[in-house]
């Protein structure tokens, strides 16, 4: 049956078909939907682990135990899990293990661009790359076979435009009985699996020999394919870049690399000999280009195409025109509306977002805020402007501690979400106790992993497969770490946010504020929506409510005569009734829920 599937959905189906038994990961755009699609399928165990390193070890354990396993993460997740990738590459496994890593060229939802193929070469593991959803499905199966044939973890590299683009996939309901995957006794083999130096020295040459054998395999593998066309231009391409190149150079000859590491040296040399000009079209690093140059074969790549950012049919075409590969006439005519600069529409904290209460007070108290990865990073945007650093998952608390140790004129604090706290915030918080800094850590506990679309985590009481489980409470955990000053507050109550922050700012010991309020998009929060209203006769158009940066607050058509400025209005379709704006209004023009209820009562 033909179905329209995203690369992520197709990959999950492919993994299921290939008989994957255990899968683990941590949510991260653009990879999240892979495990979400796999989790409800029969005969599969799938979990959200607290972080990518744990997830990686879970998958290794399953593969050591003889079950086909998969670990899924975004590109920066592999930095967290890198230690595990390297030992798994040395030990090998008892059953196939596929490491799915989704890169984010163009940084749609990431703190940086990283080319995961570098890890493949670094760790001596093969790397496969699909060009559409059908291949995402098919390549997982190929990856499991490769993993078992060569006794190695196999990287399957996705990118945003493969993960989140939909294309036609032939879907079947058949699940393979995976070879060599019968559950049984744990096979004891210390020389292979206990990586003390003496054993690791024995394993190292096996790993190096393995990658040479994989290069030989690549010479004849159907994963790589030559499509001969016009011989004046030969294009080596992989992943989504192949699709763009096919679009822009419909007549050229192609060497399409389904396996981007290791490369088939002989096949590339043969292809190069048959074409007049050899170019490489690849997203991000000149990875294939460098490998081809190392073979002594001249080629062009990043001298033509951009090194940074996401490619597109447009960038590929424009680069080709600039390099003289295509005539300028190949550029499509387009309409060019003459417009003055349009106002931007950046992503923003949602109406009713509980983080808004903390950030509006942090700004008021002029705190330096060391932030973390999650929706709350958006607190950096004006007019809130209340997040001043954000690097990677879990960095906030360590950075805030370092800032305190260096000493600054202002007071600073760390903010970290609940899921991020469980991911990698705990050791850093332990450090503020052990090494005694007066770091204030605000844990924005909205009971979910919000940014990636509301995934469960160790604090929610449900697993990825919707099984009830222990919900780890944050307060006893931080107390057990040795934090003596802990406050649990409602971030919607800005007076309490302010008084608590002020009290903790005066301490010279580490403290934790748990700002507890479910994400405004969760069903339990939605049920309590109650749009507020502004009493226009009271509004003095001061703009205080607009500085809390809520999309539900609009400019009214009505003007306040004394300052000739537009008054504020509230969009009833967007307002959730969190009352943060009502609390900052200096003239009480914004009616609280209780006041609205009173009004209704009076009317009835």
């Amino acid at each position, binding site marked *: 049956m*033909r*179905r*329209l599937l995203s690369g992520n959905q197709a990959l999950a189906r492919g993994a299921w078909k290939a008989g994957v038994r255990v899968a683990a990961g941590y949510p991260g*755009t*653009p990879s*999240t939907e892979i495990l979400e699609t796999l989790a409800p399928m029969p005969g599969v165990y799938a979990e959200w682990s607290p972080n990518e390193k744990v997830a990686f070890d879970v998958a290794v354990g399953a593969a050591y135990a003889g079950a086909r396993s998969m670990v899924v993460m975004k590109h920066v997740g592999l930095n967290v899990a890198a230690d595990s990738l390297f030992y798994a590459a040395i030990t090998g496994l008892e059953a196939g293990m596929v490491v799915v890593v989704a890169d984010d060229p163009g940084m*749609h*939802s990431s703190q940086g661009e990283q080319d995961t193929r570098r890890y493949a070469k670094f760790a001596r593991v093969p790397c496969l790359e699909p060009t*559409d959803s059908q291949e995402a499905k098919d390549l997982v199966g190929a990856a499991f076979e490769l993993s078992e044939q060569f006794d190695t973890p196999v990287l399957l590299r996705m990118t945003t*435009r493969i993960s*989140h*683009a*939909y*294309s*036609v996939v032939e879907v079947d309901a058949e699940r393979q009985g995976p070879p060599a995957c019968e559950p049984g006794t744990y096979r004891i083999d210390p020389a292979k699996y206990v990586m003390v130096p003496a054993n690791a020295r024995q394993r190292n040459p096996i790993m190096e020999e393995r990658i040479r054998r994989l290069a030989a395999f690549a010479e004849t593998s159907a994963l790589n394919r030559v499509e001969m066309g016009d011989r004046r231009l030969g294009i080596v391409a992989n992943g*989504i870049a192949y*699709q*763009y190149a*096919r*679009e822009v150079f419909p007549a050229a000859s192609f060497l399409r690399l389904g396996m981007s590491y290791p490369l088939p040296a002989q096949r590339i040399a043969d292809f190069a000999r048959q074409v007049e000009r050899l170019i490489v079209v690849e997203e991000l690093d000149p990875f294939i280009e460098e490998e081809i140059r190392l073979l002594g074969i001249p080629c062009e790549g990043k001298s033509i195409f951009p090194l940074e950012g996401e490619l*597109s*049919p*447009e960038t590929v*075409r424009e680069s080709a025109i600039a390099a003289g590969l295509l005539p300028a006439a190949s*550029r*499509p*005519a*387009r*309409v*060019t*509306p*003459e*417009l*003055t*600069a*349009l*106002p*931007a*529409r*950046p*992503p*923003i904290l*949602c109406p009713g977002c509980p983080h808004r209460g903390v950030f509006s007070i942090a700004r008021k108290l002029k705190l330096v805020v060391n932030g973390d990865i999650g*929706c709350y990073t*958006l607190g950096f945007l*004006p*007019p809130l402007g209340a997040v001043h650093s954000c690097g990677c998952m879990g960095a906030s608390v360590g950075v805030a501690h370092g800032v305190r140790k260096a000493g600054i004129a202002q007071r600073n604090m760390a903010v970290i979400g609940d899921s991020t706290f469980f991911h990698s915030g705990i050791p850093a918080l332990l450090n503020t106790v052990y090494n005694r800094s007066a770091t204030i850590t605000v844990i924005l506990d909205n009971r979910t992993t919000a*940014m*990636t*679309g509301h995934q469960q985590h160790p604090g929610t009481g449900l697993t990825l497969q919707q099984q009830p489980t222990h919900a780890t409470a944050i307060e006893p955990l931080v107390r057990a770490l040795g934090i003596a000053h802990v406050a649990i507050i409602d971030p919607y109550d800005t007076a309490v946010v302010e008084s608590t922050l002020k009290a903790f700012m005066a301490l010279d010991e580490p403290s934790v504020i748990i700002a507890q309020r479910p994400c405004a998009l969760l069903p339990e929060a939605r049920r309590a929506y109650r749009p507020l209203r502004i009493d226009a006769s009271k509004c003095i158009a001061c*703009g205080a409510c*607009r*500085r809390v*940066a*809520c*999309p539900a*607050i*609009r*400019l009214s058509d009505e003007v306040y005569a004394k300052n000739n400025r537009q008054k504020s209005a509230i969009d009833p*379709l967007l307002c959730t009734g969190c009352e943060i704006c009502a609390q900052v209004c200096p003239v009480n023009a914004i009616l609280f829920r209780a006041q609205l209820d009173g009004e209704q009562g009076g009317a009835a």
Partner: protein
Amino acid sequence: MKAMTLNVVLAGVGGQGTLLAADIMALVGLAQGLDVKKSEVHGMAQRGGSVISHVRWGARVHSPLIAPGEVDLLIAFERLEALRYAGLLRPDGVLLVNDYRIVPVTVTSGDGRYPDAEEEEAALSDAGVRRYLIPAMRIAQEVGQARVNNVVMLGAASALGDVPVSIWRDVISERVPERFVALNERAFAAGREWMERERH
């Protein structure tokens, strides 16, 4: 083969139902037995920001992204977003705009200005864009609920092509939750009717 490919961009604001509309558009391509690709972005890009989706149908489609100047049809669910992406259209391309404004926070906080109708009109007509300004929000309210303005827009778009209505209706009834099928069917029919009257 190139001429047979239909390139559609759908643009709106996070929460407006842009991605659902794109889904329906893509599935209509699939139901015709064509090769289909659709591209969209999730995650941080979606939080109330501007949302765009590319949909392509044809005998063989390679890229999921459409290059500027190759868009046949731009369906915009909000007037500012229509302006933002109008430059993607090919010279004889068609722009469908929902007559609806969502003022971005950048404007509310005094950091920019929402273009008025005259500026908008001038910019688009100078460029020769064929535009239909569709009261989809009003039509949606008339058929029962503002939320289905996205399907009103699809109904209007359907009247510009020759895909049998039955295909559209089948896809919509499969794609939306069962209890909303009738509502969405009314929205689709009303949008289509609006466009048929407009072009008469």
